């Protein structure tokens, strides 16, 4: 159960090796966390994530197998996690950036990005929502992206999946309004993680820990949408008003 100050005892991470999600888990007060389920495909990364959280003093960290693409298995997977105890916060953090130019040449690569980021999220998101609704409390945190606010020439495949995910998450939040369960949509900008390693940094680049701080504060305040860092909200509002011919010629 969350306590009156909004601190969770139990967290499920979908995409359990995501650097942003792991930073978020570390940002919760350690004394309250009792169960942290890292749902991810088996890998060294996953083992390392369990070990590093445990070493940081987080209790009850376990790894379970989860693949965003395996939508047929999502129902049973979500049920098994919730059947062994209430979940206060679910971080939906899996996602792939994909290679835009390669995907333009091989649409099958684009389908992988879309299936992971959108289809997989819709599937597991609905199963999670059903169980949060049944337990009468809890928040699903969906990591969208500023890339979904307005798709750019340079990464519109990824951007469009985030646009779809963002719309889905907002609608799901509205469906759950008044049920005790809720959805928090997080729109990070450029964050220094594995996903962006080696890429030229955009203005207002932040560390995963900065996003984590914003997520934790937003959960406490019961917010529904948040940009990370916060001022990106104004930047994106301005970008959205640019005429197509101007936006198209923007660098990157």
């Amino acid at each position, binding site marked *: *159960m969350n306590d009156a100050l909004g601190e969770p005892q139990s967290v499920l991470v979908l995409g359990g090796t995501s650097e942003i999600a792991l930073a978020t888990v570390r940002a919760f007060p350690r004394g309250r966390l009792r169960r942290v389920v890292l749902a991810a495909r088996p890998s060294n990364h996953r083992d390392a994530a369990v070990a590093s959280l445990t070493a940081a003093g987080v209790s009850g960290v376990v790894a379970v197998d989860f693949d965003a693409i395996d939508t047929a298995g999502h129902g049973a997977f979500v049920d098994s996690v919730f059947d062994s105890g209430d979940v206060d916060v679910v971080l939906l953090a899996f996602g792939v950036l994909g290679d835009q130019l390669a995907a333009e040449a091989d649409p099958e690569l684009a389908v992988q990005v879309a299936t992971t980021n959108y289809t997989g999220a819709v599937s597991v998101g609905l199963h999670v929502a059903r169980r949060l609704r*049944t337990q*009468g409390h809890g928040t699903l945190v969906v990591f969208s992206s500023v890339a979904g606010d307005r798709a750019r020439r340079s990464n519109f495949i990824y951007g469009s999946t985030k646009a779809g995910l963002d719309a889905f998450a907002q609608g799901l939040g509205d469906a759950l309004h008044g*049920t005790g369960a809720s959805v928090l949509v997080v729109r990070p900008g450029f964050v220094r993680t594995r996903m962006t390693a080696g890429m030229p940094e955009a203005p207002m680049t932040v560390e995963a820990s900065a996003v984590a701080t914003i997520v934790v504060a937003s959960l406490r305040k019961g917010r529904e949408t948040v940009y990370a860092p916060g001022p990106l909200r104004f930047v994106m509002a301005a970008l959205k008003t640019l005429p197509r011919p101007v936006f198209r010629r923007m660098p990157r």
Partner: protein
Amino acid sequence: MESPLSLTKDDRLLTGWGRTNPSLGRMHRCADAADVQRAVLAAGPRGVLARGLGRSYGDAAQSGGGTILDLQALDGITFDAAAGTVTAGAGASLDAVMRAVVPQGAFVPVTPGTRMITVGGAIGADVHGKNHHVDGTFGAHVQRLTLVDGSGELRELTPDGPSASQFWATVGGMGLTGAVVEATFDMIPVTSSLMSVDTRRVRDLDEAMAHMAADDAQHRYTVAWIDSVSASGRGIITSGDHAPVEQLSAQQRESALAFAPKALATAPPVFPSGLLNTLTIRAFNEAWFRRAPKERVDELQSIGAFFHPLDGVQEWNRVYGPRGFLQYQFVVPDAAGHVVRTALDRLRSTGAPSFLTVLKRFGPANPAPLSFPQPGWTLAADVPAGIDGLGAALDELDELVSSVGGRLYLAKDSRQSPQMFARTHPRLHEWQQVRDALDPRGVFTSDLARRLSI
């Protein structure tokens, strides 16, 4: 087609009085005890829980996804004048009991700072009042009760005899042993509905504590309000007794036992967050302190003014804004009275202003394993939930309270950790064994029980 996400007509989003951390429950209005039994048997995987008037501050009277038993229809009140007892349905409020019985010359054995609580809630939390040092808790005055247990069986429980362990597990058991449907309790005979009250300002916390330790026995009721904003811990001690009819004027005697208070106003439904800030609270504390006379004796006050000043404003809990508030209440043994000062200092340095800070000295404990009061000092302070650093400050105070053998009041708690709870309730295991026998399927549960792994 029905969506699994949609609300159904009996779904209610519930919180405690502090309006933090809501969860959705399915309300089940029970018409009678048989209805309660049926609801328990029909309980789904998320269980059942009795809820009274929701005056506990935290998550004690809510259960996400569970069936919430509303017992307000179980509101019968019978006064046995010869025995001096009342038999009441668990859904009857203490307000209703007082309205029915004060005019007949009897007062409830214990009343908390609000009379808008139910008999079921008074037993579930084993509530205390300003007379704890003399009369103990509400549970200590219950002669018998009827409980619907986790198997849906109706059980008659008494404080002595074969059902004693189950009786005392239910007293202070926070609704987790079953649903109380009826109880019989002793009343206090009174000859007027007025209180004879002594008021005295104290310059600081030491004076307040010294005075209370020395003079407690002089009065049936006593409590101190502390100015939480001042560093000294100055305050006001009020002590009182039921005024004998002889103390009333001729005119007052004509309606000596009258009791029909009305609520004055409802706080507006939407308050901006932060309306109560350090400044307004400082001003309130200053005015409250100045309002009290330096010393006054034998003033006649109404029951409402003496016991339930806040019941005059309905829904005053909304003034703390949408983030809600919590009440931090602990008890520490007499020897650890210094913790009171540390707690006040810590709350002040955190910028957690409180306008309702109350200090009281408890008398002996009763046999109930989870009952809160134990001999020593209890401090209760309201604090807004949205303050930065509040969690860490209260965790620190928890450590201190537990290190001296104290604990927190479950009816007020909304944030302690399961470790803190287990450490400070040495008889938890004993209680759990009795509970498991009463509720082998674990049907009765609450958000508080989940949070604390009870």
